[in-house]
C-alpha cells in the first residue's frame, strides 16, 4: 500500500483524478522518486536508467486499458527533466493519463520538464489526457515545460487533451507530430493564465502521409497581467487536411499573440487557420445578469463554460 501525504493526495486529485491508487498500469512519481508502479499483462512500465523516465510498452491489440503516470513536485527548488516513451502496439486502443502538479511553498523555483514521446503503431488509437496544476504560496516559481512528440503510423488515431488552468507561472509547451497515411490527430488545448504568468504553446505538425489529418483547437483565457503566445505550424506535405484554431478571451491587462503558420507543400493539401481574440462579449454578461447573476458571477460562468 502506498502512503501519500495530504499535499500529494491533493495534487493527484487535481492532475489525475486519482484518490488513492489507480487501477490498471500506473506509475506515481514524487520529487524524483517512484512511489509506486504496476504493470499489467498487456502494459509494461519499465524505468529508464537513473530515474530519468519510463518506457511504456503497450502490446498490440490491447483494448480498453489505461495508463496513469502522474508526477508530483512538493520540494521548493527541485528541478527535473523526465523522458517518458510510449510504445503503442498495432491496433491497440488505450487511454493515457499524465499530469504534473507542483506545490511550491518556498522561495526557490521548482521545475518539471516532461518529454513524452508517443510511437503510435499501425491502426492504433490513443487518447492522451494531460493536466497541469500549480499551488503553494511561496515566492519560488512553478515552471512546467512539457514536450510532446507524436509519431503516427498509418491508420492510427491520436487525441490529445491538454489542460493547464491554475497556478503554473511559466510554461513553454511544445507539441510535435508526424503523421503517416490516413493517420488522424486531434488536439484540444485549454489554457488559463493569471497574475504575471507566461505561457507559450508551440505546435509543429507534419502531415506526411496521404489522407492524414490534424485538427488543433486551443481555447484560452489570459487574465490580470499574463501573457500567452499560440504558435501553430502545420506542414501539409501531401494530400491531407489540417486545421488550427486559437480562440481566446482576454481580460484585465492580459495579452495574447496568435501566430498562424500553414505551409502547403503539395497542391492537394487543404489547410485552414482560424484565430479570434477578444474580451467577453458584453451581451453575454448582460444575458446572465438578467438571470440574476452578478457581473463577476457571469464572467466566471462564461469562462468555466469556455474552458470546459
Amino acid at each position: 500500500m502506498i502512503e501519500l501525504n495530504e499535499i500529494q493526495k491533493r495534487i493527484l486529485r487535481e492532475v489525475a483524478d486519482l484518490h488513492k491508487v489507480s487501477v490498471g498500469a500506473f506509475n506515481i512519481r514524487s520529487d524524483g522518486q517512484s512511489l509506486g508502479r504496476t504493470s499489467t499483462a498487456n502494459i509494461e512500465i519499465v524505468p529508464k536508467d537513473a530515474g530519468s523516465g519510463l518506457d511504456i510498452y503497450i502490446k498490440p491489440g490491447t483494448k480498453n486499458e489505461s495508463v496513469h503516470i502522474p508526477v508530483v513536485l512538493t520540494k521548493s527548488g527541485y528541478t527535473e527533466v523526465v523522458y517518458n516513451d510510449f510504445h503503442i502496439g498495432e491496433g491497440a486502443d488505450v487511454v493515457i493519463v499524465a499530469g504534473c502538479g507542483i506545490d511550491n511553498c518556498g522561495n526557490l523555483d521548482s521545475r518539471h520538464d516532461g518529454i513524452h514521446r508517443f510511437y503510435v503503431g499501425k491502426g492504433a488509437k490513443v487518447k492522451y489526457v494531460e493536466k497541469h496544476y500549480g499551488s503553494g504560496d511561496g515566492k519560488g516559481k512553478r515552471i512546467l515545460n512539457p514536450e510532446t512528440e507524436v509519431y503516427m503510423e498509418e491508420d492510427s488515431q491520436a487525441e490529445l487533451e491538454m489542460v493547464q488552468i491554475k497556478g503554473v507561472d511559466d510554461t513553454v509547451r511544445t507539441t510535435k507530430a508526424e503523421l503517416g497515411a490516413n493517420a488522424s490527430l486531434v488536439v484540444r488545448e485549454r489554457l488559463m493564465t493569471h497574475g504575471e504568468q507566461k505561457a507559450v504553446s508551440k505546435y509543429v505538425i507534419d502531415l506526411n502521409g496521404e489522407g492524414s489529418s490534424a485538427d488543433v483547437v486551443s481555447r484560452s483565457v489570459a487574465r490580470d497581467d499574463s501573457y500567452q503566445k499560440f504558435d501553430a505550424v502545420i506542414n501539409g506535405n501531401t494530400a491531407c487536411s489540417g486545421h488550427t484554431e486559437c480562440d481566446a478571451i482576454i481580460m484585465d491587462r492580459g495579452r495574447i499573440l496568435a501566430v498562424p503558420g500553414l505551409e502547403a507543400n503539395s497542391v492537394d493539401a487543404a489547410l485552414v487557420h482560424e484565430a479570434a481574440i477578444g474580451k467577453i462579449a458584453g451581451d453575454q454578461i448582460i444575458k446572465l445578469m438578467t438571470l440574476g447573476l452578478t457581473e463577476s458571477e457571469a464572467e466566471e460562468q462564461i469562462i468555466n463554460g469556455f474552458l470546459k
Partner: protein
Amino acid sequence: MLRLENISFEVKDEESKEIIHDISLTVPDDKLVVITGPNGGGKSTLAKLIAGIEKPTSGKIFLDDEDITDLSITERAKRGIGFAFQQPVRFKGIQVFDLIQLAKGEKISIGDACAYLSAVGLCARDYINREVNASLSGGELKRIEIATVLAKASRLSIFDEPEAGIDLWSFQNLIEVFEGMRKNIHGSSIMIISHQERILNIADDIIVLKDGSLAAHGSRDEILPTLMGTSSAVMECKMVNSVLGGGEQ
C-alpha cells in the same frame, strides 16, 4: 405590477436624440400586455429600460411599488424581472442544461430542465447537452431563450419580438407557448413586444408606441380594431411574404 412614471430616454451622440418621450403606464398583475407600433418607435428600448439594460434620462420605474429605477440588471432580475432577448446570445461551451440551471438559480435535475425545453416545443433529449453556440438555428436559440425565461419564473416576463428570426412553423408553436403561459399567469404578468396579429389576439391590453411616445393604451377589444391592416398588426401571410421578399415588414 409594473409602473412607469414619466420615463424619457435620450442618447447623446453628436447631437442628442430622444428615443423615449415621457411614457407613463401600468402593467397590472395577471395581465398579458402586448406592445406594438412601427419599427423604430422605441419598443425594444422601453423593454431594456424596464430590465435595467438601459437607464432612463428621467422618470421612475416601480415594481410592486418599490422604486427600481436605480437598481442594476442583476437586482431587478432577483426582484422578478425576466427578459427574453430579441437576438438570443450565444455562448461557447455553456450547454443548454447549464443555461436553464442558471436561469432557475438552483441545482435542478435533467428531468426538470427537459420539462422547460418540452414546454417550448423542443425535443429535450436532443438539446439538453448541446452547446448554446452557432450550431443552433435561430429558431432553436429563440426557443431556448424563452425556456430560460420560463425557468426563471418571474413576476414580470418581457419578450422582445419573440417571432423575429423564426420560421412560420416555429411561430405556431410559440403561440401555443404563450397561450400556456397566459393560462398560468396567476400572480405575475407578461409583456410581449410584437407586431403579430396572433400575439395581439391573446393580449389583455395593447400598448402602441410611436416615435417614442405612447400613441394608444387600452384593452385588446378597444385597440386591436384600430390596428388591423397596419404594420402594427401583421398577419402570418405577410410574415411569409416578408421572409420570401427579405424585406422589412
